[in-house]
């Protein structure tokens, strides 16, 4: 029995058990509902707004109906015509919202409330055109000549965006993909974290590790949850694609297949890197309550990396900073896809970044396996990273109480005795720290706003820094946490 096969069994178990759970199914259903809803609902509202109803009454030139329709078509609006016998019937229809506008004698437009500018332009242009044709005929000008004279000149409209050579669609796609990667890495990484802590707190881990190396267990867990997450994303993406096709929405982000393939690569690498770190740190906590604080550093690196990448890449994807961030393994998954979507990365850059990330992953697997082995059998308060590294796994030696062993899911009972923590009063120190952090956050936000010439990003960076920094200082290990379960 080799470690790889055992790792695969672990992965299969993760996928089976998790996909069976009600929470997973409900989550997937909700995600599908939200994504499909986000695609379908706006188009339903849109199509309702796109077709306009125009009422006509009084003297109506022969050509008017067609002229208005043509004008509407030119700007992508379907215009439906309704004729009314008298003004009163037409106005009634306007009030009932059966029509958007009533054209009286081809001279007056009557609206229910404020005029719809686009529709007014369409109808007015139609009236003008018909009027000009009539006058031309009266003046003895051939209508065909006239039409040639007044034939519309096609005018294109181009969105320049902030940087030459790139269109705003690419920028939007880059930002959206990076955000999606962040969410995916954080979500599935967190599943690894809680999974590791659950195995430790339910004590099943000792049974497992008696049969397999820690590295296989951790790698298998990461792989299983990753595959499941990938499948979840794939299903959602497929549903989104189907929804887009069905409702025939044209707003598919302009992302090429090559870029999408890179996004998949970076999801795999980014998730694997962060999930390994999550798993290793998760082994330091004995209780699910401790899981988040023990894995805090991973989250800070992830969110910090995301903001740094966002700021660097969106301000100048060609800058040295952007390049550095897109090559450094911890930030590459967040910075490289954006640069790829914007088409600014040279061919060798993603290749080098993948190689670096792969090397980092190998190192992390070794590191995580060792931390995990050193910490997973230690219960009680949080284990410090350094202690886990020294591999002094001690059994708990205080279980002399009759009936102490408790099978199943009651981690609190045995841990409670050891998990007692002396809390020191640190309110004054904390509030002082908070003020310092607040000043730093304001300064940082202002600096970013000035440098990036974007107040929103400045505000966001400042707020993110404040949130992250306060969490770091809260989770700061104080000296009272240092006792362990040594005999």
């Amino acid at each position, binding site marked *: 029995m080799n470690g790889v096969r055992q790792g695969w069994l672990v992965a299969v178990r993760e996928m089976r058990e998790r996909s069976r759970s009600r929470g997973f199914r409900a989550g997937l259903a909700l995600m599908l509902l939200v994504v499909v809803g986000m695609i379908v609902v706006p188009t339903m509202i849109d199509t309702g707004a796109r077709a306009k109803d125009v009422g006509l009454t009084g003297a109506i030139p022969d050509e008017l109906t067609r002229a208005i329709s043509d004008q509407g078509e030119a700007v992508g609006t379907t215009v439906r015509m309704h004729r009314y016998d008298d003004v009163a019937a037409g106005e009634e229809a306007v009030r009932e919202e059966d029509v958007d506008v009533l054209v009286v004698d081809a001279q007056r437009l009557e609206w229910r409330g404020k005029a719809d500018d686009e529709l007014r332009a369409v109808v007015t242009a139609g009236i003008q055109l018909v009027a000009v044709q009539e006058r031309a005929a009266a003046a003895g000008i051939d209508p065909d000549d006239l039409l040639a004279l007044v034939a519309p000149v096609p005018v294109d409209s181009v969105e320049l965006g902030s940087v030459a050579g790139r269109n705003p669609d690419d920028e939007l796609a880059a930002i959206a993909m990076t955000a999606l990667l962040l969410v995916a890495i954080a979500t599935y990484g967190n599943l690894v974290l809680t999974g590791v802590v659950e195995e430790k707190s339910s004590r099943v881990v000792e049974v497992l*590790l008696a049969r397999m190396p820690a590295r296989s267990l951790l790698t298998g867990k990461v792989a299983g949850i990753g595959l499941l997450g990938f499948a979840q994303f794939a299903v959602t993406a497929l549903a989104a694609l189907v929804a887009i096709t069905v409702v025939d929405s044209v707003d598919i982000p302009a992302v090429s297949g090559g870029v999408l393939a890179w996004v998949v690569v970076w999801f795999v690498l980014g998730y694997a890197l962060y999930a390994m770190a999550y798993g290793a740190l998760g082994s330091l906590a004995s209780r699910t309550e401790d899981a988040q604080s023990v894995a805090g550093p991973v989250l800070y690196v992830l969110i910090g990396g995301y903001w740094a990448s966002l700021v660097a890449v969106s301000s100048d994807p060609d800058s040295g900073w952007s390049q550095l961030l897109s090559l450094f393994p911890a930030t590459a998954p967040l910075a490289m896809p954006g640069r790829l979507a914007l088409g600014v990365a040279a061919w060798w850059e993603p290749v080098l970044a993948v190689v670096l990330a792969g090397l980092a992953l190998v190192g992390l697997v070794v590191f995580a396996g060792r931390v995990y082995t050193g910490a997973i059998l230690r219960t009680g308060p949080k284990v410090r990273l350094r202690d886990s590294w020294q591999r002094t796994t*001690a059994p708990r030696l205080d279980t*002399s109480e009759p009936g102490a062993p408790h099978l199943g899911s009651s981690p609190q009972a045995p841990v409670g005795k050891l998990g007692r923590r002396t809390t020191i009063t640190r309110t004054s120190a904390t509030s002082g720290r908070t003020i310092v952090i607040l000043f730093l956050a304001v300064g940082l936000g202002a600096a970013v706003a000035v440098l990036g010439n974007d107040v929103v990003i400045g505000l966001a960076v400042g707020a993110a820094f404040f949130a992250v920094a306060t969490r770091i200082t809260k989770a700061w290990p104080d000296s009272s946490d240092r006792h362990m379960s040594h005999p």
Partner: protein
Amino acid sequence: MLEVEGGSKRFGDVAALDGCTFSAKPGRLTGFLGPNGAGKTTAMRAVFGLVELDAGIVRWRGVPIGAAQRARFGYMPEERGLYPRMKVRDQLIYLGRLCGRSSRDVRGLVDSWLERLGLADRKNAHLDDLSHGNQQRVQLIAALVNEPDLLVLDEPFSGLDPIAMGTMSELLAEVAAAGASVLFSSHQLDLVEDLCEDVVIIDHGRIALAGDLDELRTAVPHRFVDVHYRGAAVDWSALPSVELVESKDGEARLRVDRDADLAAVVAIARHTPDIISFTYQPPRLSELFRQAVAA
């Protein structure tokens, strides 16, 4: 045969194992005894590589233990625990397959064990929906699911009611009779005395006493005579080569030399007016234990 040779392990300033050497033989039950903190759990974990020894070696059939050997071991840790929200049968099959058994093999084994321990109708229940006793049974099956050649159990009897204890004893004896080495720790010395052929007594990380229990008992150079009688207190000092250990109304414990003439023992019986019970035996395990640990 399982052999631990010179196993040492320190946790900070504390030596959990200190040159500890013992073995567990195939086909026999070995009781692993010692006060709390003596190093029992650490020694058992070392067998499974859960604790890396600072010095010393653990062998199975003469070979240092690796993954291949562990696939043929069964282990029930002191801290019981399986996946609480996983179905009983599923997780037993999973644990069996982790030992490298084929899925069909494991299924058959799991089903027969579930049947045998009366859990067949609960096999699709989640573990945490089972009663405490049933959870203990599942934990036991988890240790047996790969038909182990070596079964190591850390405090298998703690928390069991007398009936479950009986079942557990029978089962362990059966596993040993089928040829496996069975090593388990316990504080219930009388139970160990009844059940085990061999004992290992550990104290402060060192082996204080180890070997065949009957041999260990008979090797002690004295025997005890316990007398229970009616009537007035007896004056034992009149008897030659008999030493009074303790006496209270109606009961007395006397020590005689192992090689003493049986006549001395008979003399005790003669000396006692109205005997209710009379036993002549080597020291019990509990006495060996106290002596070994106190030394």
